[in-house]
């Protein structure tokens, strides 16, 4: 990394140290984000009030501004190619607010037996595209063009050394929008993180209109009327996509080691790798004997666990957990099965993260003979 000149003022060390400690590992970042999401969904009527949201947003922007005075932070977040990611995080935050604010207002109206704002007579009335819409489009187009031109003048597109197949940079990173998937590589082999996950993201998105049969909440913002759908989508988009991209971009340095937001990327940082497989935990630690030579007895427990998780668990949930039972009753076999498959694969990411953090678990099923590791 290029050494970055220190500025006259830097954020106080007790603050940067505290943040580096709290956000001291990938799991801390992910768990805190999940906690944040839960709070956000639980209290959406409160924090979306303009004054509170404004205060939170202002504080976040101030914090970001202060952070840029930290040399380690600036070295990463100040790179031209990383600026769009900062903008992405800010704009996602803004639009999540805008959507949930309108949902909160509509939900209040729905509770009082009123229709959502979008259904009011004056909103439902038809208006002329020319000029009402055409002018909005024109203004948006001009403003956005100005924004793009200013951005392009202010920030030169980066260009590194010529391509050299003999010189691998460390870290080597995929384009930023795929860094969530690259982060998944910490927990899964490429066939899952790089092939299965993207495929299931696409199939999952495509299935949404056919699985979500809830007729309410069509054509207006609401949370109350579609809590499950909205929560699931926000989890997928905000946590499994945006937060992982953030993590992969700003907090993963050389050797894909984790670095706190204000921690300089030290290429010599060593992270002990003592991860073990489930089969080793079972045979060596629990049974206290050697590993079987053949992969089948060795991995049978892991295989059963995975099969049970994917195919038995949905059945049990549908029987014994009210939320899933009502889902099952509404959706029927095919829809429920597909939904659960996607849901559980998404959930496996969190489970694998937790297992890595608590048990140093590497693979649940490890059959390197067939490149089949889970």
């Amino acid at each position, binding site marked *: 990394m290029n050494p970055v000149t220190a500025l006259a003022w830097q954020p106080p060390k007790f603050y940067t140290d505290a943040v580096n400690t709290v956000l001291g590992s990938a799991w801390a970042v992910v768990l805190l984000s999940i906690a944040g999401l839960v709070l956000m969904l639980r209290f959406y009527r409160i924090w979306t009030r303009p004054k509170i949201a404004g205060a939170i947003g202002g504080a976040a922007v101030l914090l970001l501004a202060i952070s840029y005075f930290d040399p380690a932070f600036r070295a990463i977040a100040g790179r031209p*190619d990383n600026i769009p990611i900062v*903008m992405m995080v800010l704009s*996602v935050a803004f*639009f999540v607010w*805008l*959507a949930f604010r*309108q949902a909160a207002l509509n939900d209040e109206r729905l509770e009082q037996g009123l*229709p959502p*704002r979008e259904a009011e007579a004056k*909103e*439902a009335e*038809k*208006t*002329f*595209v*020319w*000029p*009402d*819409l*055409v002018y*909005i489009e024109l203004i*948006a187009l001009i403003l*956005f063009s100005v924004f*793009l031109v200013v*951005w*392009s*003048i202010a*920030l030169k*597109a980066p*260009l590194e*050394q*010529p*391509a050299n*197949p003999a010189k691998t*940079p460390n870290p*080597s*990173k*995929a*384009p930023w*929008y*795929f860094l969530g*998937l690259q982060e998944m590589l910490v927990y899964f082999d490429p*066939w899952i993180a*790089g*092939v299965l996950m993207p495929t299931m993201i*696409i199939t999952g*998105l*495509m299935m*949404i*209109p056919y699985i979500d049969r809830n007729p*309410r*909440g069509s*054509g*207006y*913002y609401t949370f109350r009327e*579609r809590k499950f759908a909205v929560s699931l*989508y926000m989890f997928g*988009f905000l946590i499994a996509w945006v937060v992982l991209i953030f993590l992969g971009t700003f907090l993963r340095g050389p050797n894909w080691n984790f670095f706190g937001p204000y921690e300089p990327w030290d290429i010599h940082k060593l992270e002990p790798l003592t991860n073990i497989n489930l089969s080793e935990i079972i045979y060596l630690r629990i049974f206290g004997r050697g590993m079987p030579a053949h992969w089948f007895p060795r991995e049978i427990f892991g295989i059963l666990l995975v099969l049970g998780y994917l195919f038995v668990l949905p059945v049990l949930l549908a029987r014994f957990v009210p939320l899933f039972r009502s889902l099952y009753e509404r959706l029927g076999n095919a829809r429920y099965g597909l939904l659960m498959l996607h849901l559980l694969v998404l959930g496996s990411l969190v489970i694998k993260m937790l297992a890595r953090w608590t048990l140093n678990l590497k693979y649940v099923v490890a059959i390197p003979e*067939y*490149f089949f590791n889970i």
Partner: protein
Amino acid sequence: MADEVKRGAEGGGEDPGRRRGLFAWLRSTQIWTSVFRHGPPDTPRNRTLAVMSNVFLHLHPPKIRRSGIRMKYTWCMGGLSFFLFLVETVTGVLLMFYYRPTAEFAYADIVSLREDVPLGIMRELHRWGAHAMVITVWLHMMRVFLTGSYKPPREFNWNVGVMLLVLTLLLSFTGYLLPWDQLAMWAVTVGTNMARATPFVGHEGPGAGLLKLGDINLVHSGSDVRFALLGGRAVGPAALLKFYVWHCVAFPLAAATLMAVHFWRVRKDGGISGPL
């Protein structure tokens, strides 16, 4: 004929007290009336004609629910995504004038775009526009989801949207390689390495060993999907050319076609969604 033009230009019921001076004169010239076949858009009839008689504006219906044009409802994100696609097309074509997709010239051409073109910001516009488009498409998708706009009758258009999302990412990814610098080569190496692990058809994927003729493995590093993708075992000149063609021809055409379908369907599905 002249009569018709005149009728159009006067466009029924216009307040005769307004529109004097230069602009009014301009509107009465034969050139103007030959282009715009309707009078000033200040009557319902002419506002309708303004949209209906223009092939581009005709993407819109003449009238639309008020809730559907609110910025706070659509965030204009679909429109911005489309606008950025157009920006990418124009700046991309300009870049093509300077850029040769060979290992010999690619990097040098980018350097000269940087160093030799006075006031050149085409590369910047193209790159930042691409980043921005990825973001606006995600935000657009989030708005469509949160307004439940994928619900019947818009299920299919949501899926057209998902395909557009994939194409947007693929466009961005294939473009990433073209500067042919270290960032480009290694980002694409990391990305395409995943293809090695594709089940059955990648040489390090589960089940790769199953496809065999006698003792001979059919799926190996010189025959798997990654090889097909890159035209070689590593990211090299063949990959550069392939990505260039995907990036400049195949994906933009596919995206433009799907966008036509997407916009068409927005209208056919009843315009921007609103409460039923």
